C-alpha cells in the first residue's frame, strides 16, 4: 500500500500544476494517470514529440508546444508519478483517509491519501447521429489524439462535422500538416455573432483567448477547405464502414464521399469519478451537461475530495492550471503544510487570472451552443452504443413509466455495457427530460458503480496482497 498527503488523478494542465504547487508547499504528492506520459488531452505525447518528432510541433501549434515546459516543471517537482495506471475505484469516507484502487501493470495497487484531487478532465460530447456506430466515424479528438501520439492521419476523403473551437483547431492543424480535408460541415446555428454580441464586453477581459479564436477562424477561411454552414440532419451512410455523409446546409441537401467522418459538438466534464463518489451535481443549461457542485476552494460535496480543471466545468487549459493551483494551495492550508508563506497572495493572483480566463465562456457558449436536437431524438438512431439501444426505445421506456436513467437502464440495459453510460448518459437524460417535460436536474443521471474501468481477474485477485 502507498500512503500520500495528496493523491491527484489526471496529469493534464490541472493535475500537473496542482502537483508542482503542492510539492512547493511540502506536501507529499502521488499523481496517477492512464496515459503513458504527462500532458493530459491538450498536451498528449508532448515529451515524445519533442524528442522524436520535433518537426510536428510546427503544425500542432504554439499552444501545444507550450506543454513541454509544463511537463518539465512537473517532472522536476518531486511528485511521485504513476503513468499508464488506471484508477478504477475511489472510496471517500467523510472522515479519515481516502482509498484509491489503481490497476497498474496487471496488479491492483491501493493508495491511502489524506486528500484527493480529481483532475480527470473532459470528454467530447457524444454525437448520436444515424450511422455514428459505423467504422470510420470517430470523434475529432480521436483523430487529433492519433496525430499527436502517432503522427497518424485519416486518408482522404476526410470530412469534419460539428461545431466549436476543437473542430476549428483540428482543421487548421490538418491544413498546416498538409493533410487534405475534403470539407468542414459546420453545425453552428445561424446568428453566432449576434448571439455573442451581448457577451462581448465582459469577454474582452479574456482578449487573449478571443484573439486566438479569431486567428483560427482566419486560418480556416484562408485554407481553402470548403465549409458548409448551418448544417443539420447529419447522417453517416455506408455498408461495412462509412462511405458517404449526408446533411442539409442552409436547407439544401449536401452529400459527400468520406472514408472518415469526424464528429465534434464540444466537450463536457468526464463524470465517472465524481458520480462514483456520489457528490452533488447540477445541470448547466448553457453547456447542456452536469457539473459537480464545487466550493470556491474547489471542494466537492464530499469532504476532502477536490476537483480541478475541465472535469469541474469547461474552462480550457489555462483555467485548468489555475484551478489546479488554487485547489493545491487550499489543500495545503487544510493539511497544515509548512511552506506556505505567500499562499494567500498566490490564491488571489490565481483567482484573478481565472476570472479573466472564464470571462470568455458565456460568449463561446452563446456563439457555439450545444446541440438542441439531442433531447428531441427518436427513431432508430443508436443512443447506447454498447447495448445497441435506440432513441425510440428510450422514449418507449419513458412512456412505460421510467422516471429516470436508472429505471431506463433496468428496462433497456442502456448504460449497462462496458462504457457504463459514458456514451449514452447525457443523451438518455436529455430524452427523458424531453419526454417527461422536466428539467434534467429532476431527471438525474446513472448511478455509477465500481470498477469504473475494466479490471482483469488477475488485477482483482492481486488486490488483497497488494504490494
Amino acid at each position: 500500500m502507498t500512503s500520500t498527503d495528496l493523491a491527484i488523478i489526471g496529469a493534464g494542465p490541472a493535475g500537473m500544476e496542482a502537483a508542482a504547487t503542492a510539492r512547493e508547499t511540502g506536501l507529499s504528492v502521488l499523481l496517477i494517470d492512464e496515459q503513458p506520459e504527462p500532458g493530459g488531452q491538450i498536451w498528449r505525447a508532448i515529451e515524445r514529440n519533442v524528442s522524436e518528432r520535433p518537426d510536428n510541433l510546427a503544425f500542432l501549434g504554439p499552444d501545444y508546444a507550450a506543454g513541454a515546459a509544463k511537463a518539465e516543471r512537473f517532472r522536476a517537482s518531486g511528485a511521485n508519478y504513476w503513468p499508464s495506471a488506471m484508477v478504477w475505484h475511489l472510496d471517500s469516507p467523510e472522515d479519515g483517509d481516502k482509498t484509491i484502487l489503481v490497476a497498474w501493470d496487471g496488479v491492483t495497487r491501493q493508495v491511502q491519501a489524506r486528500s484527493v484531487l480529481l483532475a480527470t478532465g473532459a470528454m467530447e460530447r457524444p454525437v448520436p447521429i444515424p450511422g455514428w456506430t459505423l467504422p470510420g466515424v470517430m470523434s475529432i479528438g480521436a483523430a487529433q489524439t492519433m496525430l499527436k501520439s502517432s503522427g497518424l492521419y485519416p486518408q482522404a476523403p476526410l470530412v469534419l462535422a460539428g461545431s466549436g473551437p476543437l473542430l476549428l483547431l483540428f482543421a487548421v492543424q490538418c491544413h498546416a500538416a498538409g493533410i487534405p480535408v475534403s470539407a468542414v460541415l459546420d453545425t453552428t446555428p445561424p446568428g453566432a455573432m449576434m448571439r455573442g454580441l451581448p457577451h462581448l464586453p465582459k469577454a474582452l477581459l479574456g482578449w487573449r483567448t478571443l484573439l486566438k479564436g479569431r486567428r483560427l477562424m482566419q486560418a480556416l477561411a484562408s485554407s481553402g477547405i470548403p465549409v458548409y454552414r448551418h448544417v443539420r440532419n447529419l447522417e453517416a451512410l455506408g455498408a461495412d464502414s462509412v462511405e458517404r455523409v449526408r446533411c442539409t446546409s442552409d436547407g439544401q441537401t449536401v452529400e459527400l464521399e468520406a472514408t472518415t467522418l469526424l464528429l465534434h459538438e464540444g466537450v463536457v466534464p468526464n463524470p465517472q469519478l465524481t458520480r462514483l463518489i456520489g457528490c452533488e451535481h447540477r445541470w448547466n443549461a448553457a453547456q447542456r451537461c452536469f457539473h459537480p457542485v464545487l466550493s470556491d476552494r474547489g471542494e466537492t460535496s464530499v469532504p476532502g475530495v477536490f476537483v480541478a480543471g475541465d472535469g469541474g466545468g469547461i474552462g480550457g487549459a489555462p483555467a485548468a492550471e489555475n484551478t489546479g493551483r488554487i485547489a493545491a494551495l487550499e489543500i495545503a492550508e487544510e493539511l497544515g503544510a509548512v511552506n506556505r508563506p505567500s499562499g494567500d497572495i498566490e490564491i488571489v493572483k490565481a483567482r484573478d487570472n481565472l476570472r479573466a480566463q472564464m470571462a470568455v465562456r458565456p460568449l463561446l457558449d452563446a456563439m457555439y451552443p450545444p446541440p438542441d436536437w439531442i433531447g428531441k431524438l427518436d427513431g432508430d438512431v443508436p443512443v447506447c452504443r454498447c447495448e445497441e439501444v435506440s432513441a425510440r426505445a428510450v422514449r418507449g421506456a419513458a412512456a412505460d413509466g421510467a422516471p429516470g436513467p436508472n429505471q431506463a437502464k433496468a428496462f433497456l440495459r442502456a448504460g449497462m455495457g462496458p462504457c457504463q453510460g459514458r456514451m449514452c448518459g447525457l443523451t438518455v437524460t436529455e430524452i427523458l427530460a424531453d419526454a417527461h417535460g422536466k428539467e434534467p436536474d429532476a431527471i438525474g443521471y446513472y448511478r455509477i458503480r465500481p470498477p469504473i474501468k475494466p479490471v482483469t481477474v488477475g488485477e482483482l485477485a492481486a488486490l488483497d496482497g497488494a504490494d
Partner: protein
Amino acid sequence: MFRRLPEPRARAVHFTFEGEALTAHSGDSVAAALLGAGIGHSRTTPRSGTARAPYCMMGVCFECLIEIDGVANRQGCLVEVRDGMTVRRQQGAPGLPEDLADEGGK
C-alpha cells in the same frame, strides 16, 4: 484508412493480429497500431454482432475492446503496443456470465 506522417526516428514494433504479422511504431497504442495497419474493425458487438472500430481513442467509448495476449476486454487505445504481442479481435462479450453471452447471441 490511416496514413502516417514521415517519422525518421521511429522504431518498428512487430506484433500479430488474428495470426497475421503486422508492424507498428513504438509509442502507438494497440488501437492506433491496428488503424495504422489498415484494420477496419477490431470488435463485434455482443447483441447484433456488428463490426465496430475505435471511436474516442481516449478511454471513454470502449469501442476498442480487444483481446491482448489472451486477456479479453482490454482498452486497446490505452495499452501501448509491444514487440511480440498477440492481439485478437474481440467477438461479442467474452468473460460475461453465460446467460448474458447467450442473450447476446440471439
